[in-house]
């Protein structure tokens, strides 16, 4: 009886520790052997080929689908033999429990990738790309090859060729904090500045592209004129145009996946309320913005649209602390739509972002005094924490495959970008260099993009 009481008291003193609940599919990654890029009659030296191999390897390690078998000299020889005589070497791969063998080869400046299916010995050439010898450009081509292979093997395009928008905050020469929008590849490479506001810029987000087109525009908030104002700009020149002539502070814009309206926060009423601005990327704002949600003595923030553009998730502290709510967009004649709170277990939530497939919302919430990334799943109606550790983490953004998330850490004086896939739940830092990197936005894809 004493022992029973001791057990109860022991568990009674333990506060609820945060549980990282992995997806049931976490361990169901496809085992793959990816050989190093080797070349014949090629102008590229071994060192350059090793760099490209590292890029390809990174893409497969972080695609959330495959589990790479470790490289070894023995397996490299085995892969070379498989390339020449595929059916004679299948048993060895079966014993190694590998399902696919991927062998890239350079011939002159052409990179071909052949994939061998261990189960039946079939092989196919999936990718044939021309490399330039210029590393920045060749990295992008390798990323495209990785996505093509992913599509061919798994019926779903990878995210290796996507890009990330973010802000980089640095002190300028006068000691003032400046923040501009930057863009990089999804792995943090090829980072370059996009805006030249010479002001304080925050919260960039891509504007979804038209069908069949590539992303070319983005939204952001600038303090160029003093009060924060929302701008839309071309990625080519980064020169923004004001979204609205509304007075006061305008913050936290989000564009509908339908590309027909922008939700944002404005305090024109004297309170930070939720507004909708009809908008097209081609023609800009249409008519006046409409106030769509407010609450007495409450703060509203961070709207995000569902994929159909018919609902909004947003933050409000109308119940006393910031929580995530979902509401239908008002239709003509509709009255008294009540937003529904979804973050009940996660206390103090913020920065919601709706997944492109509509099944989940990622957000930030406090767990044991640390800001962590959480996911609300509409199919299971459950919330779960997907990050851990002492660093604060915020501002999640979904990849177009709805399986990866990017976020920034947010400790005092330090902020870095991390990507994480929902199967492995292993964060991978992608940002490099000085400055605080924050407010990431993951490039969306058009519906018909391949």
């Amino acid at each position, binding site marked *: 009886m004493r022992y029973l009481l001791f057990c109860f008291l022991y568990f009674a003193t333990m506060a609820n520790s945060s549980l990282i609940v992995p997806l049931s599919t976490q361990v169901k990654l496809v085992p793959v052997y990816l050989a190093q890029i080797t070349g014949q009659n090629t102008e590229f030296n071994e060192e350059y080929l090793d760099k490209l191999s590292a890029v390809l390897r990174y893409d497969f390690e972080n695609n959330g689908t495959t589990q790479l078998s470790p490289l070894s000299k023995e397996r490299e020889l085995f892969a070379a033999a498989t390339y020449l005589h595929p059916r004679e070497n299948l048993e060895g791969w079966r014993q190694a429990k590998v399902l696919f063998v991927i062998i890239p080869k350079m011939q002159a400046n052409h990179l071909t990738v052949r994939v061998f299916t261990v189960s039946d010995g079939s092989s196919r050439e999936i990718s044939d790309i021309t490399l330039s010898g210029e590393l920045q450009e060749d990295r992008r081509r390798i990323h495209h090859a990785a996505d093509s292979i992913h599509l061919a093997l798994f019926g779903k395009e990878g995210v290796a060729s996507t890009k990330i928008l973010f802000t980089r905050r640095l002190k300028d020469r006068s000691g003032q904090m400046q923040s501009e929008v930057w863009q990089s590849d999804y792995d943090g490479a090829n980072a370059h500045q996009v805006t030249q506001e010479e002001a304080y810029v925050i919260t960039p987000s891509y504007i979804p592209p038209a069908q069949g087109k590539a992303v070319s525009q983005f939204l952001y908030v600038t303090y160029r004129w*003093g009060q924060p104002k929302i701008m839309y700009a071309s990625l080519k020149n980064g020169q923004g145009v004001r979204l609205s002539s509304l007075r006061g502070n305008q913050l936290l814009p989000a564009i509908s996946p339908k590309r027909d309206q922008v939700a944002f926060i404005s305090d024109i009423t004297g309170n930070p309320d939720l507004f909708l601005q009809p908008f097209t990327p081609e023609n800009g704002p249409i008519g006046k913005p409409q106030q769509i949600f407010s609450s007495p003595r409450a703060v509203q923030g961070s709207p995000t649209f569902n994929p159909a553009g018919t609902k909004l998730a947003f933050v409000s502290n109308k119940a006393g602390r910031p929580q995530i709510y979902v509401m239908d967009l008002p239709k003509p004649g509709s009255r008294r739509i009540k937003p529904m709170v979804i973050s009940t277990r996660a206390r103090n939530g913020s920065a919601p972002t709706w997944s492109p497939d509509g099944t989940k919302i990622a957000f930030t919430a406090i767990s044991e005094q640390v800001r962590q990334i959480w996911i609300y799943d509409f199919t299971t109606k459950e919330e779960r924490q997907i990050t851990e550790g002492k660093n604060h983490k915020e501002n999640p953004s979904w990849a177009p495959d709805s399986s990866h998330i990017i976020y920034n850490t947010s400790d005092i004086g330090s902020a870095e970008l991390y990507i994480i896939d929902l199967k492995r739940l292993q964060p991978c830092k992608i940002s490099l260099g000085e400055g605080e990197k924050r407010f990431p936005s993951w490039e969306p894809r058009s519906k018909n993009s391949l």
Partner: protein
Amino acid sequence: MKYAIFLSIALSLSSCCRTRGDIWEDTKTAGRYFGKGFTVLTGGSDSYEAYDRVDFYPQGEEYGYVAFEEEESQAMLGMQSVEPPRETPGDPGCRLPSVEAFIDPSTDPELANSFQSIPFAFDNSQITQDVAIARVRAAASYMKSHPKVYLFVEGHCDQRGFEAYNLALGSRRANMVRNMLVAEGVSKDHVFTISYGKERPILLDNSEQAHQTNRRAEFKVYKPS
């Protein structure tokens, strides 16, 4: 012994699930929901959304947006709404300079005592502390005796909150100060707001003093020559 076991079970079931802070927060939330529920039962509502776009509030139309119906919004807000200023410093066509021309009052002996920072409680935008009320009134007094002066109210937050949410909270803090200044008799067209969220902390460490210092509204003053 039976009672001890029962008490242990009860305690374990409660404390296993939540910390003490969580229980206190939930108690406060339950109280707010009770109040809101009573309001709804008596015919009110705690939040609302826009009606058809043809039903707009004239003031909203004047300031460039489609708003809720004024009568209902005032009843629900329970407070008099403060109109926005007619102009925004720095905007194209505005005769007022941008915020860079507004000075930190602590650098001017004439202004320093009248425009001290307004403190706020954590995750709160209410001006309830005596020192906060006194400081807003001091600012209002100066503005009323110097009607040509213009003022920016900056809303700031401490480093513990969310980056995105704090941008909105900073806006609310700045507007609460503005509302009080206007209620005290300051011209609504002479007071503007900026939200900086937690982007411009004064102190960067993790101490309670730093957090308290960073949770503030600050003034920036423009005296036309």
